[in-house]
Each structure stands twice: as C-alpha cells, then as structure tokens.
C-alpha cells in the first residue's frame, strides 16, 4: 500500500506538485494521467525518492519512506522507464539480475530467477540471456525492462511511460500482458502515461493531474461517466467518451437471452467489449449479434438497442 499525504514538491518558487493526496491499495493498478509537465513523473519519482518531496509524507505499508535508506527503499520497489534504461554494456541476463545482485543473492538463485522471469515475459532464456540490449527490438527491450523491475520480487512497481516509445501494436500486446501479469502476481503498480486509451485499459484507479494537482481520481468508469470538470472530460476523450466506455464494458453486460427467432449470423465472444460489438455491427451492417461462449456455442444475443443501453423493451 502506498499513501501520499498532502505532498508538495517545489523547485525554487514554482510548485511542480501541489498538495496532493493519494492512496494506492495493495494489488491495485493505479494509472496517473495528465498533460506533459503536470507533475505526474515528479510524483512517481518522489515515491522511490529519486526526487525528495518538499512537504507532506509518503508511506509505504504505513512506514514513512524516509525511515528507509534511499538505496534500500529503491531495491524494494521495481522501476521501469520509457527508454527502458537497460545498461547497453550488460547482457540481458546481467541487466535482469541487477537488483538481486545488489541484494547479494547467491549466484544460483539469481540465475534461476533470471530464467524464470525471461520465461514469464515470453522470452526464451537460451536465446536472449546472452544478448545485448542493442540486439533487441523495442518490444523485447521493454519486456526485459519489466523483467528487471520484477527481478527481486518487489511488492510495488513504478512505471514511467514504459510503453511510450513502442509502435501501437507492440504497445497493445504489452499492455494486455502487463494487465495479465498484474492479475497473476498481485503487485501494487503506479503507472504514469499520457495515453488515455492505455490508462483506461490498465487502470483500477485512474488519477487525472493538472498543474501539479489531482483533479479527479477513481474507477475509470466513474471518471468517464461523471467527470468533475471540462478538463477531465476532454482528457478522457471528449465526444469519444462513449466509445471509450464501451471499450471497458464486456458484451455479457448488455446481452439478452437467446430469442425465439433463431440465431443471428454474425457472432461475438461474450468476453469482447461493447466497442468491438459496435464495430462489427457497423462493418457488417447488421443490428443484432449472436453472443457465443468460449466453445463457440450461442448463449445470447446483442441488439443495437441493447448495446447502446436504450431503456425499455424492443
């Protein structure tokens, strides 16, 4: 659990971060969004003391972070940044083993851990362990970056636009993987980005920052439906919010039981999002989809009226 209590950071006379309070529960995926220069990266770096906060207190598991030695604190917290920050003169294996080595793990344990992490992130150990970062693609390097952050099994991960430099397809793959990883490992993650789609896809808790302050925080759907002001509304996509909300809701939420009139021709998986359903309707020019389960067995149907959430019966 991470707690920021009335935190401020001043550089000279300007306040980069101005009296923010934030609580991230254990196992929660917290995404901080905002325009450039809004203080989101500063906030992140104050948590591992790369930047010292000016006022207030930051607690990790109810202990103030200043009660730890800087290095000790950082070794307990995974850290991944946009440029990956991999050391170009070290092999992948050595990069990943960095924090365990700092913690003086025995060599055999480090080797086993590196192997385990490479497998976890879908990289074959025998192929990648001996490579240098310059020999990796952007997506592979970023996976190694995440593996390195996870190496000493920290409870907390701080990520500063880790996928910012990747192409859209790789980025989306990694987002999905990170989300699955988070569900599996139950880490507490604070993730900074300016990409709203990324934020909505990942967040349990979404925090919108502007000019060093937190404007609104809460579940992504809450922010989409009830933005406190125009800034939050426009950050969340303005008129696109309908589509962004649809992307967060599964088909199963709006489907109706199978009708008597037979099964519609176009099918959609029950786990797919309403946004995908809408897209299929637009593309195929149909108003009704058959909803199928994992075994491709129809279990319900989704009409256009149901999809848009219109009230009343058809």
């Amino acid at each position, binding site marked *: 659990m991470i707690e920021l209590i009335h935190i401020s950071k001043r550089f000279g006379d300007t306040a980069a971060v101005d009296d923010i309070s934030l609580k991230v529960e254990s196992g929660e995926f917290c995404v901080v969004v905002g325009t450039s220069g809004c203080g989101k990266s500063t906030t992140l770096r104050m948590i591992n003391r*790369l930047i010292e906060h000016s006022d207030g207190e930051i607690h990790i598991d109810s202990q103030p972070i200043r009660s730890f030695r800087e290095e000790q604190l950082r*070794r307990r917290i995974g850290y991944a*940044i946009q440029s990956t920050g991999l*050391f170009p*003169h070290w092999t992948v294996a050595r990069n990943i083993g*960095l924090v365990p080595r700092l913690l003086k793990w025995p060599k055999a344990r480090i080797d086993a851990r590196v192997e385990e992490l490479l497998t976890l992130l879908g990289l074959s150990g025998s192929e990648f362990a001996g490579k*240098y970062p310059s020999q990796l693609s952007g997506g592979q390097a970023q996976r190694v970056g995440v593996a390195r952050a996870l190496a000493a099994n920290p409870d907390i991960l701080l990520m500063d636009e880790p996928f910012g430099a990747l192409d859209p397809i790789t980025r989306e793959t990694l987002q999905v993987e990170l989300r699955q990883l988070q569900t599996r490992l139950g880490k507490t993650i604070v993730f900074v980005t300016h990409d709203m789609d990324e934020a909505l896809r990942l967040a349990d808790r979404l925090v919108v920052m502007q000019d060093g302050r937190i404007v609104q925080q809460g579940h992504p759907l809450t922010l989409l439906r009830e933005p406190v002001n125009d800034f939050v509304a426009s950050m969340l996509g303005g008129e696109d919010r309908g589509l962004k909300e649809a992307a967060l809701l599964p088909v199963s939420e709006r489907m109706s039981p199978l009708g008597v009139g037979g099964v519609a021709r176009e099918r959609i998986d029950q786990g797919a999002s309403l946004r995908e359903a809408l897209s299929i309707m637009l593309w195929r020019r149909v108003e009704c989809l058959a909803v199928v389960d994992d075994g491709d067995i129809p279990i319900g149907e989704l009409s256009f009226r149901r999809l848009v959430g219109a009230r009343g019966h058809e």
Partner: protein
Amino acid sequence: MALMGAALVAWWMLPSVTMAPNRIVPGTAYAASEVAGWGAAILASLPLAVAAWLARDLDRQRLKALLALVVVGLVGLPLWLTAASVQLVDPNLPQARIGIGAGLWLTLFMLLLALVELRTRLVLPSPVTWGVALLPLVVFVLCLPLGLDGLALWQEYAGRRDDFVAAIGEHLLLVGATVAISLVVGAVIALLMRRYPRVQRLGFSLLNFLQTVPSLALFGLLLGPLAWLSDRYAWLDSLGVSGIGWAPALIALVAYSLLPMVRNTFVALEGVDPGVVESARGMGMSRLQSFLQVRLPLALPVLLEGVRITTVQAIGLTAVAALIGAGGLGRFIFQGLGQAAMDLVLLGALPILLMAVVADALLGNLANRLRKGEPT
C-alpha cells in the same frame, strides 16, 4: 586508381636514390633507369602498371590481385634499395652512402595509401593490414647484411646505436609520464567540472588559452620560474628539476595534454544516456556503484579517444622538448638540422612517426573493443 598512375610518374620522373661520398657533400641524384639500367627499371615498374590497369574496373577478385601487387611493391622497395646500394656505393669509401630519393619515397607513400584503400574495400582484418604494412620493414632488416648497410639512414644509426636506443627510451618515458599525469589530473578536473559549473567555464577557457601558446614559447616561459625554484630549494635540484631538462618539458607537455584529456573525459561522462543513469539510481545502486558500474564503463570508449589524441600529440611535441635538453628522439632532428644532415633528421623523425601510428592504432583498437553491446 589514380594512385598507381601517380606512383608510376614518381618512379620515372623523380630521382630514385641519391649517392654521396660522405655526409657533407650533397648527393648526386640517380633516376630509376640510371640505377639498374632501363630493363630493370621497366621490370620494377611492371607491378605498378598492372595495378593501374586492374584498377580501371574493380571487383573482389581484382581487389585481391591488387593487394598482392601492393605487397610485391612493398617488398620490392627495400630490395631495390639493396640493389642500388650494391651498384653505386664504392666499397673503398667507408663514408659513402646512399640516400632514398623522392621517387622512392613517393612510391612508398602511394603504395601505403593503396593499402589503406584496399583495406576498407576488402574489409581486411587489422592483423592482415598490419602484417602487410610491416613487411617492408622486415625485408629491410633482412637486406641489411646484403649491402643495404650503405644506406645513409643506416649509417647514421650505426654511428650512434646506443644513443638511439637511449633516446627512444627517453622519448617513451616522457610520453608515458605525460599521458599518465594528464590522465589523472584531467580526470580530477573533469570530475570537478561536472560538479561545479563555474569550474567548467573557467577551466575550459584556461585550457583553451594554454593550447594556443606556441610550444616553444611555453618551454621558454617555464625556464625562469623553474630555474629560480631549483635554486631556492635544494631538494628540487637534487631531483633534477631545473630550468632546462625533463622538468619544464614534462610540465609543458602536461599543460598541452590537459585540454584534449579533460574535454574528452568531460564529454564522455556527460554523454552517457541520462535514462540509463537514472534507472541505475532508481534500481537502488548507490552513487559510487552507478558511477563505477554504469557511467564510467559507458564513457570509457570516448575517454580512451582522449587518451589516444593526447598520446599522439605528446609523441610529436616531445620532439620539440629536445630543444630544452629533455632528450628524446627530437635530439637527432635538431642535430641533423644544425648539421644539414637530412638523414640524421630522418633517424629522429621516422621512429616518432612510427610510434605515433602504432600508439594511434593500438588505442583506437582498444576503444573499439570496449564498445561491446553498442550498435556499430
């Protein structure tokens, strides 16, 4: 390749060797055709002509053939000299000597240029290039007993064998000390500059200024203060510090070496990707750990570049230091200049040249080796 054409022209038009009965008299020039007759001269120029013809239209096969011809040419040059020496030097005149003429020098130069060109085109591994480049030297040594000892350069060397070895030792010692001291001092200055921006501005302008002072002037300027110091403090005197000699030379050489050393060290350390250093800190490395394990190793190739520049520069400048009695190979150059004995100048200059080239190649190679993992 125009190179071969130029070599041919040089071979035919300029004197190949000069011949003098002793050191004082300027030598008589002989063209290639006069040395060994027309037949031999034409035969000797054959490889060059074939090479020029091959060079019109290049593919890999022809490049290899060219390489072979260049090797033949390089091996041939000392042999040619030997032949000329046997032909021209009168065994009854012990002081008689043979000099290397402009034509021969130019041919050698063109052949070496061709070698450099071929090396990049054929992507030769560096040991091969080195082997080829050193071939003439080996042949040269092998030819010595066969009559090449009539060569003026060799005669100058034979006259001062011990002196020569000592001078090389002095030269290397002075260069080594200069590089070592400026590396340590330069590193300290560069580190201070990184910490305090004010030191950085002041330091660079001071070092830039030092660099503009002519070397001879700097040697002269140090003469007074050092003489005074050694006069005043007996322990300095007993160390050998005085207005002339190694002390002012070393100080001046270090002063010149500091700029390239500091600049490269500074740039090298600053040039490390800030993201990498930040993640090192963010991962929980201490300041010292992130400096020693991340910043320094990543800066090392550029830093070594500074050492390379400094070393090559110091090798050259040390020659000038001979003027204030610091010894080294420069001594022969100035003696030779004083006595109008060009071969003596060469005896000083050639090893300096060789030293600089070897140091340059070795340090450059080392820097490349350290760039592991970086995209090339």
